[in-house]
C-alpha cells in the first residue's frame, strides 16, 4: 500500500518536472508560424526540423568543442579540487578556517566584474609575453579549471569531513601518510560526492553561455553548442521551433551521461554500507 502511494507521489512529481520539457518537445515539432502561439499540439508534425537543425549549424564541430570544454574542465576540476578539499578537511593546521573563508570569498564577487581585467590579460598581455593566441580558443576557459574552484572544494570538503577518523587512523598505523589516506580511504568512500561534483561541473560547462561568448564570439569554428542556439535568432524574428529542437539535441548527451552516472551513486551506496 505504501509502495503504491510512494509511486503515485513520484509519478505526480515527475509529471510536474517533465511537462514543460514535453512542451519544448512539442514546440520543436511545429512550423515556425505555430511555434510560441497558443496552439499546443503541432499540426502538422514537422519532424524534419531536426534535420534542418543539423543542416543549419555545424553540429559536429560545435559538439566536439563542447565535449572538449566540458570534459577537460571536469577533469581539471576533479584533479585539482580533491587534494585541496582534503587539506581543508582531513589535515589539521593552524589558520585552516581563515584560508577556507578565503576560498569561499572567491565566490562572493560577481564573476562578470572579476573577469573584466582577465579578458585583457588573455587577449593582449599573454600573447605579448608568450606569442600564443588565446582569444578565439578554448584555452582561457580550460586552463583556470585545473586550479580549483571554490564550489567543488566546498562540497568535497563537506563530504570528506564525514569520513570516520578510525579508517584514516588505520592507514596511519600501517605507516601511510596523507597521500595514502587520500588514495585508499577518502576517495573510494567519497565516490557519490566526487561523482556529483563531476556531474555538476560537466553540465555547468556544457550549458555555459557567457564564457564562450566572450572568448569565442569571434571564432565560429571554436564555438560551443550553447552559442549555436543563437543561430536561430533573426533580426526581427526568432525561429523558436528550430531553437527548441536544437535545445533538445543539446540536452540529450547530458541526460544520457546523467542516467549512466547514477550507477556510481549505487556503487557508493554499497561501499558506504560496508563502513562503520
Amino acid at each position, binding site marked *: 500500500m505504501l509502495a503504491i502511494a510512494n509511486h503515485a507521489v513520484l509519478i505526480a512529481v515527475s509529471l510536474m518536472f517533465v511537462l514543460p*520539457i514535453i512542451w519544448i518537445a512539442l514546440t520543436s515539432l511545429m512550423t515556425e508560424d505555430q511555434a510560441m502561439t497558443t496552439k499546443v499540439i503541432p499540426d502538422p508534425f514537422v519532424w524534419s526540423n531536426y534535420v534542418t537543425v543539423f543542416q543549419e549549424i555545424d553540429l559536429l564541430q560545435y559538439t566536439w568543442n563542447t565535449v572538449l570544454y566540458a570534459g577537460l574542465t571536469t577533469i581539471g576540476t576533479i584533479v*585539482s579540487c580533491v587534494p585541496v578539499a582534503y*587539506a581543508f578537511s582531513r589535515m589539521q593546521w593552524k589558520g585552516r578556517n581563515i584560508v577556507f573563508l578565503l576560498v*569561499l570569498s572567491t565566490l562572493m564577487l*560577481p564573476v562578470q566584474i572579476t573577469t573584466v581585467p582577465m579578458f585583457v590579460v588573455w587577449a593582449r598581455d599573454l600573447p605579448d609575453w608568450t606569442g600564443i593566441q588565446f582569444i578565439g580558443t578554448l584555452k582561457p576557459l580550460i586552463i583556470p579549471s585545473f*586550479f580549483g574552484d571554490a564550489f567543488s572544494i*566546498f562540497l568535497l570538503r563537506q563530504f570528506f569531513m564525514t569520513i570516520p577518523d578510525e579508517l584514516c587512523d588505520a592507514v596511519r598505523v600501517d605507516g601511510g601518510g596523507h597521500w595514502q589516506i587520500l588514495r585508499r580511504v577518502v576517495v573510494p568512500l567519497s565516490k557519490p560526492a566526487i561523482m556529483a561534483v563531476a556531474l555538476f561541473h560537466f553540465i555547468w560547462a556544457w550549458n555555459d553561455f557567457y564564457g564562450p561568448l566572450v572568448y569565442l564570439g569571434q571564432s565560429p569554428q571554436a564555438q560551443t553548442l550553447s552559442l549555436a542556439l543563437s543561430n536561430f535568432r533573426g533580426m526581427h524574428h526568432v525561429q523558436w521551433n528550430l531553437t527548441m529542437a536544437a535545445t533538445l539535441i543539446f540536452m540529450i548527451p547530458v541526460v544520457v551521461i546523467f542516467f549512466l552516472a547514477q550507477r556510481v551513486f549505487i556503487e557508493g551506496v554499497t561501499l558506504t554500507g560496508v563502513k562503520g
Partner: protein
Amino acid sequence: MSEAKASPASSLARRAPAERRRQRRRSAVRRYAQVLLFLSPWIIGFVAFTLGPMILSLWWSFCHYDMVNAPQWIGLANFKFMFGVGQIQGLPPGAHDPYYWLSVRNTLWIIAFGVPLRIVFGMVTAMLLTRPKRGVNTYRTLFYAPSMVPRVATALVFVYLLNPVSGPINRIIDAIPGLDSPLWFFDPAWAKPALLIMGLWGIGDAIVIYLAGLLNVPRDLYEAIAIEGANWWQRFRYVTLPMITPVIFFTLIMGIIDGFQYFDQAYVAGNTASGQNAVLGQPQGSLLFYGLWLYEKAFRSFQMGYASAMAWIMFIATMICTVVLLATSRRWVHYGGRLQ
C-alpha cells in the same frame, strides 16, 4: 673519559629539550609543506586568476572608471551615492541611487524565501528517491532533467506557462471556482513568486547533492535505531537529519552566496516576459535584483567604479552571513557522527 662512562639515559636526558624542539620544528615544517602541496592547485589559481582582479575591483570601487579611460580616484563618492549620504563633488546634496535600496529589498526577499524552499524541497524529493525500487533511475533522471535545460529555454517555458491569459496554469486556476488567477510576471506582487516557481523546477542539482548526502548515511545507524523500535519520524529526526547536516550547511551557504548574486533567471525571464531589456526589473521594479542592477551599472551605463563598489558591499554582506553561519555551525552540524 668520565663522560663515556656516564649512562646513555642521562646524556639523552641532557640533550632532550633542544632535540625535541628541533624535531617538532622539522615535523611542523614537514606538515605545512604537505599542506601547501595539497593546496597548491588552488593557491596558484588564486594568485594567477583571482587575487589580481579582486584587488583591482576593490581599487575601482574608489574610482571613476568607464571601462575605457584609466580609473580616476574619487574616494568615497561611489559609496556616498549608493547610500545617499554626504556631499559628492559635482552633484547636488542628497543625490543618491534611486533604485539601490529596492534592489537590496528584492534580493533579501528572494533569499529569505528561495533558500529555505530549495533546501526543503530538495531534501524531501531526494528522500523519495533513496529507496531502491524499480524505475528509480528513470525517476531520478526525470527530476534532474529540468536542471539541464538551458536558461533561455527555461525562461521561455515559464513565461508561456504563466501567461496570465493563454497560459495553461491560469486556465486551470480559472476553471476552479472561487480562485482568481494572478497576472504572474505582469503583476509586481506575483512576479517574484513566479520566479520561485521557476526556481523550484530547477532544483535538480540540490536533489543530487541531498541524494549523495542521504546515501552517505551509514546503514548500521538505521539498523541500530530500528532495533529500538523507532518509527519513521524518529528515524528521520535522530539519524537522517543529523547525518545530512553537512549537506544542509552547504546548500544554506551556497544558497545565500548565490542569492546575493541572483540575476540570470530574473534577467532572462524579465526580458522574455516584457519583450524588452529588463533594466528596471519590470513589472515596476519588482524584479530588480542587486546582481541585475549591478550588471546594468557596469556594462550598460559604463559605471564600472560604482558597480565595483556595489560588488564589494555585497561581498561584505555575504562574508558577514558566511562567518556567522560558520561560527554557529559547530553547534548543529554533525560530521561523521561527532560534532566538528
